């Protein structure tokens, strides 16, 4: 069953799921659905379904991990045993440990940890259904959950991957494209600071392809960032009696004592 048999692009240049090369999978974001967590978010990105929960800032446990000048950020990325085709062993794998670390490091520049010395902020990312690009989707959800927890941040982090299928640069690879494609390039991006906070690659690309892939990934991150803001707006500024966020001055005046 030669790999050559698998065609990832049709004659019109459309992908297996009918997308154009520069098209994102359908994305849905929801904020604040867990009552017990201080902040939470849920993302559906293509067939990915990921839940992120944030606890804290809270007392550092065990105590010796606390830092005197800032909060410790901890992150656990985990895939549910039922999230993949073949049962995944529930114990954290090498890959999950790595992703936990990478996601934590991608979020660290955005969170103002210096406001909570000696405390910890715990992030839990649980992949309920996996379909390639879980680290990016998880990161997007985790950043939203942090904002939902009311933790001071410089800005939201959005993430998206680009890659190469059949020699063409494509945005947001799906599961088969990831497995049979030539390269994958996950990117996390902070639009306001114009800063990349996660960049990984597997497979091979030429320099030009890399630049092109990075460009479309960053553009997609900007779009996702807009959706993150919209998700927060939905939760906090619209539900409340149809008051739009725009009329913030009267509402704010009322909050004052």
């Amino acid at each position, binding site marked *: 069953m030669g790999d050559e048999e698998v065609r990832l692009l049709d004659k019109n240049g459309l992908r297996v799921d009918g997308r154009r090369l520069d098209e994102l999978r359908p994305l849905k974001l929801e904020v604040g659905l867990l009552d017990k967590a*201080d*902040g939470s978010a849920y993302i559906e990105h293509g067939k990915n379904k990921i839940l992120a929960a944030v606890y*804290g*800032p*809270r*007392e550092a446990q065990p105590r010796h991990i606390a830092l*005197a000048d800032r*909060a410790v950020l901890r992150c656990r990325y985990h895939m549910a045993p039922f999230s993949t085709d073949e049962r995944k062993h529930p114990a954290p794998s090498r890959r999950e440990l790595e992703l936990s670390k990478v996601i934590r490091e991608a979020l660290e520049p*955005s969170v*103002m940890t210096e406001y*909570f*010395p*000696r*405390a910890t902020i715990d992030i839990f990312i649980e992949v309920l259904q996996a379909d390639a690009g879980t680290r990016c989707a998880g990161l997007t959800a985790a950043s939203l959950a942090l*904002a*939902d*927890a*009311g*933790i*001071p*941040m*410089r*800005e*939201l982090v959005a993430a998206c991957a680009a890659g190469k299928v059949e020699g063409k640069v494509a945005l947001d690879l799906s599961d088969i494209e990831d497995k049979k494609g030539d390269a994958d390039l996950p990117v996390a991006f*902070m639009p*306001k600071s114009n800063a990349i906070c996660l960049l990984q690659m597997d497979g091979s690309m030429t320099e030009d392809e890399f630049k092109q892939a990075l460009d479309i990934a960053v553009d997609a991150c900007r779009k996702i960032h807009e959706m*993150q*803001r919209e998700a*927060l*707006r939905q939760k*906090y500024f619209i539900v*409340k*009696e149809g*008051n739009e*966020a725009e009329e*913030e*001055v*009267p*509402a*704010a*005046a*009322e*909050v*004052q*004592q």
Partner: protein
Amino acid sequence: MAPGELLAEGPYFAGENTYREGTKVFSARIGLADVIGNKIVVMAVKGVYIPRLDDIVIGRVTDIRMSGWQVDICAPYPAMLPMSETPMQRGRDMGRRDLGKIYGVGDLMIAQVIAFDRTRDPLLTTKGRGLGRVTSGRVARITPAKIPRIIGKKGSMITMLKKETDVDIIPGQNGVILAVGRNPDQERIAVEALYMIEREAHTSGLTDRVKAMITERNKGKSVV
């Protein structure tokens, strides 16, 4: 305002929950933006309690130490209530065992923050009027950011609550609110009202709606 949103550009001061980069002021939290003079502030809608000096808080004893109690005040930092800060006769030597007679693990107390600077854990006192052990009542936990709304403009909301429900309401700045009434039904109504305020904190005419709700509940009770 979501974190990272541009609030103002120009000669403004970056107030609470905002930060400045060059000449621009950005939001650092989800909340509602406001301009006070030439200062930009964001009023948080959610967040943890960070102790401040002189705050009245409601806490629960989690441990008895050599010379005092460790108290959970729903902050990232555990608070300490030293024995010397309780209004009791000194002089006799008191051991660990005797400390437990004053406050046991799990006891609730109303206390005041007397020292805190983020490098050290907060210190509490129960010396003062209205401070000390909680013996009865019902507790509501809301996000500390909404405590000002519970109190209302010049205390309008809390005065109304106390009057309408006939329940004494003691708001801890840490988001824990104690309602002490003459009977459990009244307390239940008061707690329901508190959660209603938290849920609808940003709507206008809230005081009147809460009042209407309480009146209705009071009526329902008299029927039964």
